[in-house]
């Protein structure tokens, strides 16, 4: 008999999960093959309690395979996996009481009505959340007596979310929650996920949308061809991936050819704008200012430092690496 953990106090969304807290999910050297086709190779990551963790990657990268192994739907080929301290491969019912799962694709009993279905789902769990609260989180209050088959795609996806939350789970899996949605539906779905985060849930989200990952995730792993290319806090991923920082300034007209910019800056000039891409912005800026004052260039006009974005990392690791 398991005593359900009392829910942690609601954390503000920005509070980073304490690294010392036991991880909600630990995945080490996970491998998976379908027949003799290997689709996951040595996947290792950790999801901390209370964080939104995103598996980002293009179609076919192995996101669904990974989460369905964590959910207990697929049998892994190798490696160790711990979800809330349990092995999902053993399919413990106790684990399912604490998980909320939104599958990538999944039908409804079509004649059921929204509130009725939520009511059924609440019956399945030992300590469910109130129906009204679930309807509020996913903004489906006005549709409580509508049959599922009459809901739009976006509304169904939010109902997916409500059902996943019915049992007041500690850990929520969302496999591509907004794929194929119009902007308005996406925004509403995002709002619902942000509501979840405010409830203190640990969330594992897969997506192939950069903006979704950037908006929702605390930390992310970039998956490509069954391998994790980079993993870390969203802001740091690009730097970890080795994407250069970009420094630009207006190139002074009166430059003396005898005093070229230091080679390490690999300065390129185009239309009067100098651009250099550097690994370490602080070192590069120091060099730049030393050179500028040696050349008596004064302040470098329109100086700007642009940190690499998630998109840059994605392009470099996924698109670029794929030879596109």
């Amino acid at each position: 008999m398991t005593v359900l953990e009392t829910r942690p106090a609601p954390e503000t969304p920005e509070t980073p999960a304490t690294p010392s807290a036991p991880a909600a999910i630990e995945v080490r050297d996970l491998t998976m093959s379908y027949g003799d086709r290997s689709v996951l190779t040595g996947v290792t990551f950790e999801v901390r309690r209370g964080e939104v963790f995103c598996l980002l990657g293009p179609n076919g990268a192995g996101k669904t395979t990974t989460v369905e192994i964590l959910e207990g739907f697929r049998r892994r080929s190798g490696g160790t996996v711990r979800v809330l301290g349990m092995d999902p491969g053993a399919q413990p019912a106790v684990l399912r009481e604490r998980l909320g799962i939104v599958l990538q694709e999944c039908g409804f009993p079509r004649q059921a009505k929204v509130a009725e279905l939520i009511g059924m789902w609440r019956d399945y769990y030992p300590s469910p959340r109130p129906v009204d609260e679930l309807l509020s989180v996913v903004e489906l209050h006005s549709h409580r007596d509508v049959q599922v088959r009459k809901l739009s795609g976006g509304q169904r996806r939010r109902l997916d979310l409500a059902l996943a939350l019915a049992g007041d789970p500690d850990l929520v899996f969302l496999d591509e929650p907004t794929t194929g949605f119009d902007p308005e539906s996406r925004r509403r779905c995002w709002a619902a996920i942000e509501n979840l985060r405010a409830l203190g849930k640990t969330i594992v989200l897969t997506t192939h949308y950069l903006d979704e990952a950037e908006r929702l995730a605390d930390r992310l792993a970039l998956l490509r061809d069954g391998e994790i290319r980079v993993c870390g806090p969203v802001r740091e991923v690009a730097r970890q991936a080795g994407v250069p920082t970009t420094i630009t300034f207006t190139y002074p007209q009166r430059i003396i050819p005898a005093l070229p910019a230091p080679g390490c800056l690999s300065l390129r000039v185009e239309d009067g704008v100098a651009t250099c891409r550097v690994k370490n912005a602080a070192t590069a800026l120091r060099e730049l200012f030393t050179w500028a004052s040696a050349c008596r260039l004064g302040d470098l006009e329109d100086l700007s430092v642009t940190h690499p974005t998630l998109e840059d990392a994605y392009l470099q690791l996924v698109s670029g690496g794929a030879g596109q």
Partner: protein
Amino acid sequence: MTAVLPGATAPRRRPVTRVARLAVRQGLAEQRTFWRSAEYALFTFALPVALLLLIGSTTAGGFLPHTHVKAQMIFVPSMMAFGVVVAAYVNLGTKLATLRHDGVLKRIRTTPIPAGAYLSGVLGSTAATTAAITAATGALGWLAFGAVPRVAGIGELAGGLALGAACFGSLGLVLSTLARSAESASPIANASYLPLAIMSGIFDPAFSVPHWLSVIVGLFPVRPLAQILQQGYTPVQHVPLEDPVVLAAWTVAGVFLAVWRFRWT
């Protein structure tokens, strides 16, 4: 609204009570959605009822050849058997195949409801539908053709219906695992029971087949069920012990196959 409400930590019910309670609620929910989808419910009833009226009005008037048995006393219980096959085997099998194909079963599997509770609920609902169809068939058989069960045959009728529903329900579960897709479930169902139903004389009380074929047909569950139910209406044919045995054997085989082959995805 994003406030965190304290989760109600209800004491956990004893497992058996919980399973039973969940099964009942699941069964009620299944019934609710069945009757809500009017066209589905209608056509489930329409097939046996329409056949009863159409065939019955042409053949049920006379007596069986070389006997004093009125044809409708055989035909009406045969159509009840047909109703059992349609409701428990065809409907359950195609319904579960569709639920699996649509991912509804997988969604159920994301929750902690015990498999036994869910399936008991679905089977219970199927049993209720089966009972409703056979009751409708019986009532119409009485109103339209004056076929009334004999008092002494109530035991055969009730026992036959219960055993038949169990047998074809378990075979319906097996059917759902045989169908690779939702689309193939219905053809498989029809191809498996219709020839048997015809060979078993379900649609024509005077139908006769060569002895060797009759022996083979007797090994499958359709005719045994029909014969037991016929016994509920008229005592002319004695129920050989083999009829309930055949049904029970198929039930056991069906349950084993279903447990072994059942998949959520």
